[in-house]
């Protein structure tokens, strides 16, 4: 974190649809090897921003550089060094997990062993299962496995934990931290602030297509507290989720 070299830089990003401005002048940088969170309510422009960086959507104006490549001129180069998990992506029908990984290996031109990829996300026992037959948490872990096939420098995770139970969520956090520790930069969107607080090195709050705050979670909280903010109810040493985990156990449910 000390070097703080920007691997993604977004300058004055604007995205207009016919009569609606989804993103209006976003600028931010993502540093190498950090977990960067994009937070904000639905419709704030998080997914649009991600998809423009991922080269899946055209922008109206602005400049984006990903690891030295421009989204305008070198989208193919960018695609080769990023891994993308979409909010609601499906997978090719009638194929099992191994076959899907083989397909993506072909699409990326990557030479990998499918089983090893599944082991990374602890799905080796589901190798012969169809994607449809997986539980919510397993689906998300499989999606993350497909983002790792080309050994990307950056992975983008769009609401990876939405709809998961607390165990599966924590399990996924561990996986994301592991991936970061292995040297990959992670950009994530989420609606869960506890998740952002736990996972993210820095977060940007997006509201109506603009960034309204960008800092480490700690600094943002300190700033709020120093402005005189107080919670209505004194915080206890544990919360209800801790109770849930404590009662139902840590181990992960299929």
């Amino acid at each position: 974190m000390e070097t703080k070299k920007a691997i993604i830089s977004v300058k004055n990003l604007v995205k207009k649809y016919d009569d609606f401005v989804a993103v209006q002048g976003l600028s931010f940088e993502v540093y190498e090897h950090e977990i960067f969170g994009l937070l904000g309510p639905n419709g704030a422009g998080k997914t649009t921003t991600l998809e423009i960086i991922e080269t899946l959507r055209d922008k109206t104006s602005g400049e984006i550089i990903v690891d030295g490549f421009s989204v305008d001129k070198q989208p193919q180069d960018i695609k080769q060094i990023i891994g993308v998990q979409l909010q609601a992506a499906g997978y090719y029908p009638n194929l099992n997990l191994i076959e899907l990984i083989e397909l993506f290996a072909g699409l990326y031109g990557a030479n990998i062993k499918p089983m090893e990829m599944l082991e990374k996300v602890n799905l080796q026992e589901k190798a012969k299962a169809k994607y449809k037959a997986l539980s919510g948490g397993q689906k998300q872990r499989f999606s993350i496995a497909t983002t790792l096939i080309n050994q990307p420098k950056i992975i983008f995770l769009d609401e990876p934990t939405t709809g998961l139970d607390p165990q599966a969520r924590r399990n996924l956090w561990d996986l994301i931290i592991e991936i970061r520790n292995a040297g990959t930069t992670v950009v994530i969107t989420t609606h869960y602030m506890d998740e952002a607080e736990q996972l993210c090195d820095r977060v940007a709050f997006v509201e109506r297509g603009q960034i309204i705050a960008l800092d480490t979670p700690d600094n943002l909280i300190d700033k709020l507290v120093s402005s005189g903010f107080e919670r209505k109810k004194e915080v206890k040493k544990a919360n209800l989720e801790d109770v849930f985990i404590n009662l139902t156990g840590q181990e992960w449910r299929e």
Partner: protein
Amino acid sequence: MKKYNNLTATLALAKASFRSIMRSPSAVVFTLAFPLIFILVFGFLGGGGTRIDVGVTPGADVNNPVMGMLEKTGMIRLVKDKSKAEFDKLLEKGNVDAMIDVHRKVNSTAYSVNVVYTSASRDKGGILKSVLNNIFYDKTLKPTVAEIKESTITGREYKTIDFILPGQLGFSLLSTGVFGTAFVFLSLRQTLVIKRFFATPVRRSSIVIGEGIARIGFALIGALFIILIGHFFFGFTLVHGALTVVNMLILATLGVIVFMGFGFIISGIAKNESMVPPISNIVTLPQFLLSGTFFSIEAFPSWLQPISRALPLTYLNDALRKVAFEGLGLWDVKFQIMILLLWGIGIYAVAVKVFKWE
């Protein structure tokens, strides 16, 4: 950085798509089960499907045993009471499949049978010939018939399967091309599979070509299966054996490629999966009925025939029959191939306009 290989990506997609098709019950049912059921039904039904119109030459002796036997087969309808000029016209258009003239030989009790076929209806002529051959070897008739004079072509034995199988094959290719392609691309688009593909370096052309390879491969396996079952179980005629099969498969490939174009168009205009079957049926049903799948289009009223002759499946069926039964080469059916290619150009010109990626 390692150079990205489009071929690897295309083949990976083709492999995935092929696996998926093989596990999709509807694809297997449409491509194999349906045509085979029809072939079985018609194969066992025998000659029930075809009807041959035979004109009786004015002045012929109608009270002879030959005519009676012909009528008894149930396949042949004798057309009488028309002038020579009228018959000539009908014969020319193929509305009458052949002419028959029976006369008692001078100074003899035996009959002389004179048959004139028409090149406008060679298929039916072939059937008539085999029918005639059969009845002339009939014991009761043989002594009374002295000679059979035949003009124009010499036909092979033309069985129902020789007519039905190419039609079913053509229809199988049509449904695989149209339904399969339409469903796959619509569902890949709707379930965001294609969007996920776009996040990889794969090219759009690789996605289309990969899908195409898989579908053509599957259709050809289906075609080969249908041809072989037809040949070995129902005596489907393959004049030049393996060469005929290869020619048929080449035609099949062309057919599937053209028909896939319809699928691309439908996947573009359908808003959801439930809209695919009705739109696909608009494309496939008229061709199923009017393209000579079950009945020769010559059996249709004359006002309907121009419509039949405008449909691509008509030409595929026609080419398949000519190659399989008449033993023609691909160059001999260049007219049919050309019409198919014209259709292909037209369809893909529309497909490029209406196809949607997301």
